[in-house]
């Protein structure tokens, strides 16, 4: 399969995509099946991406980031997702976890934390959801009681990507002023990652509850205003949703590429099944939807890069790209027939993985809610 033809804004972006393809083909693609089968978290692979400078791409060079616009960063995620969705999603979640410090931290906080966060050795987690507070995130009940020189945090966070693997956690919790955002180190006493969930797909990405049992957080770990946390959470999700949209397109593209190769090879009734219009048209629709999805997330990204409001556009991209991924991966299984249902081929995994993209960072119903409100 030919690589996706990309129009990139700079020569440096083209070089970056080249590097990402080289690493993704050399280090990620050969390992994904094994790690998914064993539900093994690829910590070493994240370090490798970190050393290559891929864990801080959309952040300022001044603080150790790659200084890349979203238009470029998202295409990097798309390339990674085509080889290993859990890794691409992990990079996206890491960015989500760096964002509150980068966008809302004081100069002191940024100087102190960002170089390490973006330097490649550390991995972040973003703790918003709770067992009783998912779509209705503002109903969260985790409490941070002022205790003199900071806060004591109590509560349970649910479905936290990188739980137990991350080095730092953004925790959204209730202070007397309202919802606030705290930055916790993994080693904080009282921060207790629970047993990993057993998931339908994306198994190499660890997801678990985080119990906060009287964790003490110093006052200088409050990000943004006390009570300003919900705004931070929503702002962070604008970028996160674009990340998921790009991941979805990468996954869908991988499914299409695999299905096309298979359809060319597979002979029935004396010819390749690609020659049957029923199959050819299905593949044509998949290709068209992917192209539209890519164009949509890129147009939202360009709004963001231009500093324009883009919440509704990010929601549209997340909705359309992930629905596309679900449809395309389901159809890819159909194109492979019985082979598609067997784990010797990756398309059944793609289909299982696509499902979660419609759920996290705001379900696709919630995206419609955001879009409808913007009309």
């Amino acid at each position, binding site marked *: 399969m030919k690589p996706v033809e990309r129009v990139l804004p700079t020569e440096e972006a083209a070089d970056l995509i080249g590097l990402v393809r080289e690493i993704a083909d050399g280090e990620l693609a050969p390992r994904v099946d094994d790690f998914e089968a064993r539900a093994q978290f690829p910590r070493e692979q994240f370090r490798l991406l970190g*050393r*290559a400078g891929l864990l801080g791409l959309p952040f300022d060079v001044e603080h150790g980031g790659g200084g890349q616009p979203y238009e470029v960063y998202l295409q990097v995620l798309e390339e990674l997702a085509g080889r290993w969705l859990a890794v691409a999603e992990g990079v996206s979640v890491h960015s989500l976890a760096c964002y509150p410090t980068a966008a809302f931290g004081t100069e002191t906080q940024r100087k102190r934390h960002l170089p390490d966060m973006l330097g490649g050795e550390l991995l972040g987690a973003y703790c918003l959801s709770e067992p009783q507070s998912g779509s209705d995130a503002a109903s969260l009940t985790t409490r941070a009681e002022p205790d003199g020189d900071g806060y004591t945090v109590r509560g349970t966070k649910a479905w936290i990507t990188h739980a137990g693997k991350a080095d730092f956690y953004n925790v959204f919790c209730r202070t007397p002023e309202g919802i606030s955002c705290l930055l916790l180190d993994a080693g904080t006493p009282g921060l207790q990652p629970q047993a990993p969930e057993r998931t339908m797909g994306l198994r190499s990405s660890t997801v678990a509850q985080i119990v906060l049992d009287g964790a003490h957080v110093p006052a200088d770990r409050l990000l943004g205003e006390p009570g300003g946390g919900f705004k931070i959470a929503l702002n962070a999700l604008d970028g996160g949703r674009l990340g998921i949209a790009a991941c979805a397109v990468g996954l869908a593209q991988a499914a299409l590429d695999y299905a096309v190769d298979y359809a060319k090879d597979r002979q029935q009734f004396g010819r390749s099944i690609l020659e049957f219009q029923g199959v050819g048209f299905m593949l044509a629709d998949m290709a068209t939807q992917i192209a539209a999805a890519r164009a949509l997330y890129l147009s939202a990204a360009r709004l963001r890069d231009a500093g324009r409001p883009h919440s509704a556009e990010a929601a549209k991209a997340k909705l359309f790209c992930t629905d596309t991924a679900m449809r395309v991966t389901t159809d890819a299984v159909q194109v492979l027939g019985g082979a598609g249902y067997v784990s010797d081929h990756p398309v059944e995994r793609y289909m299982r993985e696509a499902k979660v993209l419609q759920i996290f960072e705001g379900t696709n119903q919630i995206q419609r809610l955001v879009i409808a409100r913007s009309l």
Partner: protein
Amino acid sequence: MKIVVLVKQVPDSGADRNLRSDDNTVDRASASNVINEMDEYAIEEALRLQEAHGGEVVILTVGPDRATESIRKALSMGPDSAVHVVDDALHGSCAVATSKVLAAAIAQQGADLVICGAESTDGRVQVLPHMIAERLGIAALTGARKLTVDGTSLTIERQTDEGYEVVTASTPALVSVWDTINDPRYPSFKGIMAAKKKPLQTLSLGDLGIAAGEVGFDGATSTVVEHSKRPPRQAGNKIDAGDDGGSKLVEYLASEKFV
């Protein structure tokens, strides 16, 4: 310590490779060109020595204009600067002539240590390291799978079919390496950016005091007179897993002296 690493641009050995029909030289224009694989190990070894002992790492390439891409790629891994010898008269050079050019460029640079790959995937003659060392009058520690440096003393484990030999020499010297010696790093995004600004010196044959007639087709000690495509692969022997498949397989393996 100043380390010069020899880097050659070659056609990607994973893709279709051809000789030109007009002059029987390697077709570089239509190929997808990459850094000779073994040279990446040479670069990595040089960078590790630099990290441990300090000093400077310089990339040296003899090749056409477009070899610049490979030089930038090499620089993105971390070396400090590069020298590119490019001259139309070089086209058609044999290994002996190429070694003259490389040796002259190394002598001009001055190096405590020259590191190169043990072979290139296009020519595969494996003689260049020896020729260069001979011309420079320095020790050739070839075919290394391990290299240790202690002051001015160098020790390698030279890989052989049976195991390895320990060979030592003192600087200045040349070391050629196999792909068993290390695990080359990927460039980083910052490395790619930095590579664009690193010094790249371009030299002609004249800059090295070599006359055009000493190299290229005119100076070649050997020329390829004819070439043809490898015949297509013959259909193999297919042994069915059925009843006597096992014994047939053993018979075949025995007849080919595999067992």
